[in-house]
């Protein structure tokens, strides 16, 4: 720290009078205050040297996030729904054919079991099958390092949030289409309470998908997804073993569970922005 004192911190003339006037001080009060305020200049602070400033800058620079020049350039020229759709289109190709087929088969199996009336609790079958789709979809769409596609994904142009959003739209959009198809099949099969059954399929699916995404913020993907689905199965098991009426059998409560799932997805996306820097492999 250099010893020379700082220059006067304020112009001790008209500016001070103007300041007092701006504060609503009367001329008489200003006259009284002025000598005291002028004396403030007598207490001077030492000045940091240029070397001090440079040291400080060096310390702060180490804390800066990495500069993402390519992405910034892209971001300037790529905003809007069209880009999101284009990103989604590109991501569709990353989901293998097995994902589409297995999801459709799980849905079809659910419809067959319900329509065949093999089990007394039709809704329970759907509450197990729907979240299974969430499990499959999340695991397929959001792969971790083990999938060995990181190098490819690191070269993608859109932002992390855009990619995650695009994949969510694809996977959940497909699941919703399947749920609508399920509803149609149930209706054609003469099943009663088509809406309630469809909700029993779709809403737990949203809840488990949201929970899986939030857990995956902190846990490895497979662990997060498995934990979410296992928690749901555990919940169903406890209510079934205890012969308790399912707490989410009513359509309103099912819808609430779905809303919670959507909220969890939103939280995961919002947190992603802040987590990006921490999650960088070289971070």
């Amino acid at each position: 720290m250099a010893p020379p004192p700082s220059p006067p911190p304020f112009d001790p003339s008209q500016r001070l009078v103007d300041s007092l006037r701006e504060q609503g001080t009367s001329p008489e009060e200003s006259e009284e205050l002025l000598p005291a305020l002028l004396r403030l200049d007598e207490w001077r602070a030492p000045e940091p040297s240029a070397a001090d400033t440079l040291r400080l800058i060096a310390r702060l620079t180490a804390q800066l996030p990495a500069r993402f020049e390519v992405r910034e350039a892209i971001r300037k020229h790529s905003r809007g729904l069209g880009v999101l759709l284009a990103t989604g289109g590109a991501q569709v190709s990353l989901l293998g054919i097995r994902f589409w087929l297995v999801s459709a088969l799980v849905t079809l199996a659910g419809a067959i079991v319900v329509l065949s009336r093999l089990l007394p609790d039709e809704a329970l079958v759907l509450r197990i099958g729907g979240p299974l789709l969430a499990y499959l979809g999340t695991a397929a769409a959001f792969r971790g390092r083990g999938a060995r596609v990181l190098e490819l994904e690191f070269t993608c142009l859109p932002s992390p949030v855009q990619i995650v959003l695009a994949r969510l739209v694809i996977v959940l959009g497909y699941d919703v289409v399947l749920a609508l198809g399920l509803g149609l099949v149930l209706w054609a099969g003469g099943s009663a309470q088509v809406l309630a059954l469809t909700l029993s399929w779709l809403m737990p699916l949203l809840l488990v998908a949201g929970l899986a995404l939030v857990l995956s913020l902190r846990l490895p993907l497979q662990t997060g997804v498995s934990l979410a689905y296992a928690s749901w199965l555990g919940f169903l098991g406890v209510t079934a073993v205890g012969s308790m009426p399912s707490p989410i059998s009513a359509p309103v409560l099912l819808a609430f569970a779905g809303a919670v799932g959507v909220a969890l997805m939103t939280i995961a996306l919002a947190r992603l922005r802040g987590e990006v820097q921490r999650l960088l492999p070289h971070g």
Partner: protein
Amino acid sequence: MPARLREPNSGSGANLFHLALVEGGDGARPSGWVPSAGMQEPSDEDLMAMAMTGDHRALSTLVTRHHRPLFAYLYRLTGGDQPQAEDLVQETLLRVVRQRTYQPGRPFRPWLYAIATNLARDHFASAAARHATPGDADALLRRLPDGGQGPEEWALTRERGDEVRAALDGLGDEYRVVLLLRYYQEFSLQEIADALQIPLGTVKSRLSVGGGRLRRALDSVQRGVT
């Protein structure tokens, strides 16, 4: 105050969000805003927005611009405790750099001083607050002038400075802060209100009461001397 280093990685390597992390880069290449002759200097807000994207040069400009005034403010706020002021400057700027929620366009200076003031208040609240006295021999030696003043003149200057310091110290934080921001940092009334999150009327009131108390404190010192 030791610098806080980069927070360690969480280690959740297979996290789903690794999938989309596109950028890497060494982060050490300054880029972005490059000042040139005749070019209008970017505002604090612009620089902060650029610094948030990792622009080292913008951060350097911002720090260079604010280091001295911020240090002077914290030096006075801590009653002339130079090491503490240095620590608080660093901690304040670290908060600025680490936070990820700065909204571009938000007035930077009141926000910066709000952080600084809050940190200083936290410091005051701690048990070890204000341990160093401006009268410490080391501190006095550090402030000895290079030249231009003889020992007697320097001692007199210092004595008068200490009177002002003591008068400001006796005001209480709420009045001292507004006086420092207004008369040393040359904040507008609105900037003070923004920085301290208080109404404009309260700012004026505190300036009025604080100014009156300062005058009386300095008068009493003067009477004591004479």
